[in-house]
């Protein structure tokens, strides 16, 4: 368990298997929600998570792979693609500058 402050997140990466389908959908949702915060939201294949990502969001079924690729990144696994509480907590932490446990 570690804590990252929402204010320290400059770049949020949504990862999925191919980086072309579900991650694009979730990234566009998050981009809308985080529009005002200035946080960059990117979508990538889980095998190529960029080095400058501050936090990585991916489905729990892919979390093991994300950890292999980016062992030092905070990874937020989620269960459902629409309105998952884990994802909502990330959004809230960024918007309000509060701490996020990952």
């Amino acid at each position, binding site marked *: 368990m570690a804590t990252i402050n929402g204010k320290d997140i400059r770049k949020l990466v949504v990862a999925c*298997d191919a980086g072309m389908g579900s991650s694009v959908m979730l990234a566009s949702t998050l981009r809308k929600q985080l529009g005002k915060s200035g946080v960059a939201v990117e979508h990538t294949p889980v095998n190529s998570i960029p080095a400058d990502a501050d936090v990585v969001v991916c489905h729990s079924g892919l*979390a093991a792979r994300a950890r292999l690729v980016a*062992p030092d990144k905070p990874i937020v696994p989620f269960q459902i693609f629409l309105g998952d509480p884990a994802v909502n907590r990330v959004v809230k932490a960024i918007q309000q500058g509060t701490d996020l446990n990952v």
Partner: protein
Amino acid sequence: MASSYTPEVSGSGFRARVQKLGGYLAGMVMPNIGAIIAWGLITALFIPVGWLPNESLAELVGPMITYLLPILIGYTGGRMVHGQRGAVVGATATMGVIVGADVPMFLGAMIIAPLTAYVLKLFDNAIEGKIRPGFEMLVDNFSAGIVGAGFAILGKLGIGPVVNTLTNAAGDGVDWLLDHSLMPLVSILVEPAKVLFLNNAINHGVFSPLGVQQVAESGKSILFMIESNPGPGLGLLLAYFFFGPKSLRPTTPAAMIIHFFGGIHEIYFPYVLMKPRLILAMMAGGMAGVATFMITGAGTVASPAPGSIFAFFAVTAKGSHVGMILGVIIAAAVTFGVASLLLGFGKLKSDQEPDETPDETADDPESSRKENA
């Protein structure tokens, strides 16, 4: 690798490795789906049995499948391993397997291109910092040229013929399954693998290379329709809408739209993973869909990717539309029926909440490990 941020993952190493290998195969094909669809549309329109038979335009079909698509895959595969230089030698080496075989060399490209790029990468790493200033370009260009030429020759003489045999054997296997009406059994393997996020690996790593070969031979293929049929996912989401845990019911209509019309199948996987017994419903629906496609002789001319009903309409071969629609509807209906039964028609008290509520799972790493295992 465990750090304060990332608790050690347990029990999922094998799955992660299989996913990674599969992701690699799919990663070579998926960026090129646009070109595959372009080829599929041209094939569907202009071949003699197509919508608008045109001998002159049909001349595009052969060179595109023989050269363009394998070279694009080889280029992408090389790029994944070693950037632009890897892409160039990957495409070059792919030319060797193309000329060394008489079937579309998707599989050959997926083997030789990353291998060639990897050899160049080893060379580049070995000489890094050891080149005299001013000679970098000379060394770079000729190392790539020599590696590319070497592997093109190796591809022509060695790898091409071997992969040719393998591809033909795999094609014969598919024909055998079709001849013996066993194709629906493939769903028993495909549906569970799909919800474990091996969907792209199966569809684009396995079915696409075999499917294009079938299209080149007979103008359509059922293989593209096995994994990508949006029917079972729709049936599952409908069952959740009527009989699922009450807390999840409101999320399903949006999920249905994204799944069925948008073609993002990943959206339904969590609903299966939450109640793993529902995989039986997915298998039953998948088998019913494949059986319908098989009985009606339906096929598509390219991979409907993403697996949206719109993509299905666009790439379904001429004369296969009725079978396609039937297969999607029957798959959805069967999955809905079995899933509803497994959900006890909403009457099982224990089922009114998901086995693991998303909230708990997100808060508690233990339960997400369970989920991963």
